[in-house]
């Protein structure tokens, strides 16, 4: 089929040179899809296999499915997970969305600092936040509860962090930076002309916000919502500390029990069967997202006509309210966990603040750090942090182009496939990768045991997030810009380089950093495929924590923060200089 632009171009007598880019995009998207589907095939194979991994003599059966789905506890776990994910989503959006709007659409000061704080907060391990909240809001020993009960003579603790809502609150605070980064790019790219028109027509601030701003940002908000909601299924550290501590299981913590019995071999089969229901949910979300995308033209706000981002002026009261929100969030979600982390790192064992605790403070955990491992882990982590987002975004751009700009038959399936890695819990994805690398790839691409296998799996697993970002960015760019480029004789490569990439720069900047940070804290995938040469810092932290060394783990995590925070700050400073983020 010949596009309208193409026919116009031909009518004008243009002769186009051979354009290899579309073929490259389709090839990369196809190759990545094949890897994703192969990994999923391994998961399905595992789910149909009752024996231990590699037991080829075991017959295929549906035994894992019957075991999992006939157990009423599974449904309790799924209900818990939905509740937990829903609360986490609401909390993450409640903080992330307004802060993104404030930073991108208003004259709120200190933007670089906020970006840095939001991003650095992601490096704080979830266990530190979970422990901090536990010691504040635990029904029996929580400082706030104990204090309120003694001051007001209450018979029962007013707060209970050991609940689904409590866990969701902690996880939501932890995920708010994701909502922030995913929606900040959308607000940044918005044309304020629509808001100005609404206000000119007499609409007030709230009406403009609800009738114009939010609907325009809807693709980004929806993408962030779907992503955050499904993250709830994979979240482990908060449910493991708070949830297990009160016998509340979510999908990830239940999966770990299935996968890690104390004495027998891991039951990957039942875990894989459980995962298939996640693939079902992911399919549903993907369909919903696809429907929204099919109406994508409604959200095209970056056009060739008079695009000029203008910042909303906050009054004095507005700034005060904004500072209250941002400051409150940063204190409870960023500063408090970091303080807990540092506090844990200087204590011989975790204890509430007291004279005895202050007396026992020492730098023992820091002095005993195994620097040899830390430096190996740091080197690998930094390498993965740089390469994973770079490759993942390149692959994602290919997917987005195929889905949103090409006329390749069945292109909607590419988007569906790209979302699937997010649906399969990383731990199952990890065993899939391990098996694929050992039994298949090793024959012609011997990357098992190297950092490159980890890179490949990280890139594939981050494709879902990266495509959500590039999709929502590309949706907002009207085709007329590309058509103009095409009419001027530019090929796909030229259009990409001169039009798409510059306009996508905010999206790519946010996505790159976010993927880099996700890579820095990635654990479950890394644990499955880590070897001597590919160990990462989170694996070291996790290993120490699991071994009962909260202090050692906190010391390494603190070092990780100290080492990485300057890079994050530098990143935002450069981004600001290049006006990728809004100036204050």
């Amino acid at each position, binding site marked *: 089929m010949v596009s309208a632009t193409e026919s116009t171009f031909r009518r004008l007598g243009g002769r186009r040179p051979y354009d290899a880019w579309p073929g490259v995009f389709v090839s990369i998207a196809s190759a990545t899809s094949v890897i994703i589907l192969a990994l999923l095939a391994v998961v399905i194979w595992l789910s149909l296999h009752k024996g231990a991994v590699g037991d080829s003599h075991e017959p295929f059966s549906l035994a894992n499915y019957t075991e999992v789905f006939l157990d009423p506890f599974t449904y309790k776990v799924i209900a818990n997970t939905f509740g937990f994910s829903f609360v986490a989503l609401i909390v993450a959006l409640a903080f992330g969305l307004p802060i993104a709007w404030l930073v991108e659409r208003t004259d709120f000061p200190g933007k670089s600092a906020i970006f840095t704080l939001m991003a650095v907060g992601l490096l704080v391990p979830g266990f530190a936040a979970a422990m901090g909240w536990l010691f504040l809001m635990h029904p029996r020993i929580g400082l706030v509860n104990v204090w309120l009960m003694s001051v007001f003579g209450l018979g029962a603790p007013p707060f209970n962090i*050991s609940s689904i809502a409590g866990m969701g609150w902690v996880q939501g605070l932890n995920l708010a930076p994701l909502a922030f980064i995913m929606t900040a790019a959308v607000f940044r790219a918005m044309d304020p002309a629509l808001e100005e028109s609404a206000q000119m027509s007499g609409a007030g601030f709230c009406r403009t916000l609800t009738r114009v701003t939010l609907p325009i940002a809807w693709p980004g908000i929806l993408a962030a919502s779907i992503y955050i909601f499904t993250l709830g299924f994979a979240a482990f550290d908060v449910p493991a500390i708070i949830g297990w501590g009160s016998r509340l299981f979510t999908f990830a913590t239940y999966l770990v029990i299935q996968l890690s019995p104390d004495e027998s071999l891991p039951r990957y089969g039942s875990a894989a069967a459980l995962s298939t229901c996640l693939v079902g949910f992911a399919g549903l979300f993907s369909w919903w997202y696809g429907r929204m995308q099919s109406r994508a033209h409604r959200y095209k706000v970056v056009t060739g006509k008079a695009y000029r981002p203008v910042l909303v002026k906050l009054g004095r009261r507005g700034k005060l309210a904004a500072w209250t929100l941002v400051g409150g969030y940063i204190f409870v979600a960023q500063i408090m966990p970091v303080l807990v982390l540092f506090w844990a790192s200087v204590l011989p*064992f*975790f204890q509430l603040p007291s004279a005895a605790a202050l007396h026992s403070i020492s730098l023992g955990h820091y002095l005993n750090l195994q620097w040899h*491992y830390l430096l190996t882990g740091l080197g690998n982590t930094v390498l993965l942090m740089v390469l994973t987002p770079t490759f993942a975004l390149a692959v994602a751009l290919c997917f987005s182009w195929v889905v949103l700009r090409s006329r390749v038959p069945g292109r909607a399936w590419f988007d569906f496939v790209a979302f699937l890695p997010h649906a399969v819990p990383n731990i199952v994805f990890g065993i899939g990768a*391990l098996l694929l690398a050992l039994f298949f790839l090793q024959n012609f691409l011997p990357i*098992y045991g190297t950092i490159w296998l980890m890179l490949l799996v990280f890139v594939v697993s981050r494709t879902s997030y990266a495509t959500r970002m590039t999709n929502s960015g590309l949706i907002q760019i009207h085709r007329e810009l590309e058509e103009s480029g095409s009419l001027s004789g530019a090929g796909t490569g030229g259009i990409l380089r001169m039009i798409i990439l510059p306009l996508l720069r905010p999206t790519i900047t946010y996505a790159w950093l976010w993927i880099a940070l996700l890579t820095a804290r990635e654990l479950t995938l890394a*644990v499955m495929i880590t070897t001597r040469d590919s160990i990462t810092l989170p694996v070291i932290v996790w*290993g120490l924590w699991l071994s009962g060394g909260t202090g050692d783990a906190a010391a390494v995590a603190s070092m990780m923060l100290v080492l990485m925070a300057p890079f994050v700050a530098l990143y935002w400073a450069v981004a600001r200089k290049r006006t990728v983020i809004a100036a204050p």
Partner: protein
Amino acid sequence: MRLRLALLAALLAAAATAQAARAAEPSPALNQVIKDAQKEGRLDLSWLPSFFGADGVAELVKGMNATFGTNLAYSFTPDPGSVPRNLNKILVAAQAHQPSPSDVFIGTTNHVLIMEKRQAAIPVDWTALLPGRITDKMVEASNLAVRIYTTLPGGIIYNTKLAPERPQTLADLLKPEWKGKIATNPYAASFDNLASDDFWGPDKTLDFAQKFSKQIGGLIGCPDVERVASGEFIAFAMACSGREWVKLKREGAPLDMAVPKDYAAQRYYYLMIPKNASHPNAGKLFVAYALTSAGQKIIWNHDDYDLHTFPDSGMAQVMAGYEKEGVKFKELSVTWLEKQKDLRTLQERIIKILRGS
């Protein structure tokens, strides 16, 4: 007379020196392993960091090289997760004809049985490596596994400031004053052995699990006893290895462990050489050194465990202390486990009870 005594003393001293020299001299089997290990040139180890710790492994390798005159390079990859997942990696690598991620595997009785059943380890004449030090009793599973240290599973770790009393039996934990303040682990560790007919049997254990489940406040991982020290829970039962609390106590944590008189067990961790190990002789040499007096001391210093059957054992003293309280330990060896039936099925039932379903 004096001259005779002096002569006798000199003879005795010479005999003792000769014996000591013979003892220090490596056995022919060990000599061969040293030569082969030296040819292999390196040692790759990977397991949970809770076993010896990275610095403990470094000390063991350094001691091994110094004692046996080798200069093996080594790597240690802390592999978080669990022993079964670590074991699974070794098995999957073997099936794919790839080298094992570790030249030595560390696991307990159940893991030894899995390795044996899957023919994933190589038999070694362990007693020939350190004659007199490694005895037949320490070697199990047809020479596949050798005991490295003794553990005391099933203990009750409690907060000495907050617990209402020092519990004497598991049944004590069913008293109302403990309700809602006890943690257990999510894997029902030790409940499987408790359900053996040699202890309580399945019916009594299941009945206890039902009642115990109502007393539990939550679940925590076995090494996570810091949460007992912090007061979030006042006790953790049943302990997986029984010494997880010692390091914290040394640092001032209000912790102690009671071995219940109605369930006192001693178990072992074992070392094995995976059949797909890249450096099997280096692995054997590491195991041999870990079983010397110096190796055991390093393990004791790092993990508070050693093999209680050695004369200079710290665990022997620990066990003697409990025995003075009237505790009688029963040995849970690989041979004992092989005779048990349906313990895994029972454990799965108990996991469901304890998780509150």
